[in-house]
């Protein structure tokens, strides 16, 4: 999957990848190495991770937000629901 992200990043320059201090485990660090200007680590802050991704999406760009499933589905559930699920990208 991460190999695909790096390849996508080679071909397209209109998206970013975000992580929450798990870039080594999720392997998004490979994207960071390949495209550091389009990689952002928000630190150990999953709610902010999803919120920032939502804000980027409103501007018409894709944001890949990466973290462990338990945090994405559990800790940041409501941010995914309200900030990402309801709005429609412009």
């Amino acid at each position: 999957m991460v190999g695909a992200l790096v390849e996508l990043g080679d071909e397209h320059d209109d998206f970013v990848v975000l992580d929450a201090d798990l870039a080594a485990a999720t392997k998004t660090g490979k994207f960071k190495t390949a495209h550091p200007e389009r990689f952002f680590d928000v630190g150990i802050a999953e709610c902010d991770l999803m919120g920032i991704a939502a804000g980027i999406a409103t501007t018409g760009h894709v944001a890949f937000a990466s973290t462990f499933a338990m945090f994405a589905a559990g800790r940041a559930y409501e941010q995914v629901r309200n900030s990402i699920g309801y709005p429609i990208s412009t």
Partner: protein
Amino acid sequence: MTNEELERRAREVRKGIIIGTHAAKSGHPGGSLSSADIMTYLYFEEMDIDPKDPRKADRDHFVLSKGHCAPGLYAVLAERGFFPKIDLETLRHIGSRLQGHPNMNDTPGVDMSTGSLGQGVSAAVGMALSSKTFGPEYRVYALLGDGEIEEGQVWEAAMFAGNHALDNLCVIVDNNGLQIDGTIEEVNSAQPIAGKFRAFGFHVVEVADGSDFDQLALPSPRPGPPRACPRASWQDGQGQGRLIHGGPGRLARQGTE
């Protein structure tokens, strides 16, 4: 725009808030009224926007992070010409595009769907980051409540904004002193607000009277840290009634403390 004209517009915005919340028999008139002047200032003086082209890519963005104050946002958007003022009477009605909380899908001029407190400021950070990464250049304004900033996510967002020196971001805190269960001091105050934002790397501008348009004139954008503008929107001891959370009928009169 002269201060007199801004004051006239702000009065119209206040009227719009009362019209909307009265028609709905619901809503949040208190926090809407306490932020009427700052939103009037932003939409009539500060922000580069075009009501005829609400999704213009290089427009300045506004996120009402304290989304329950949607009646105020709707009133200022209508006053600015994004949609007819008559629509304010449909607030919270079934089928209306003016929901109880801002919905960017349906309402012209709404840049982010908000309402769950603490989330809007992260979206504002994402918008500012997008401008820095992809362009075009624009500024992002986020309006937060002083109760809202009890949410931890606010400080996650502030940390990121400070560390990334997002100088195109302006966070405004409406320091009206009230939240649902009482005053912010009675519940769990986030004071000192200014000191906290400074510690997170913000350039802080404190405004003693948030209804004074001279004081609301924000510093010109310039390279540097993100800006935070905690503002006192309500003065104690002036004999004013306070509109608190709930229906428009719940006007609570509080004496000098």
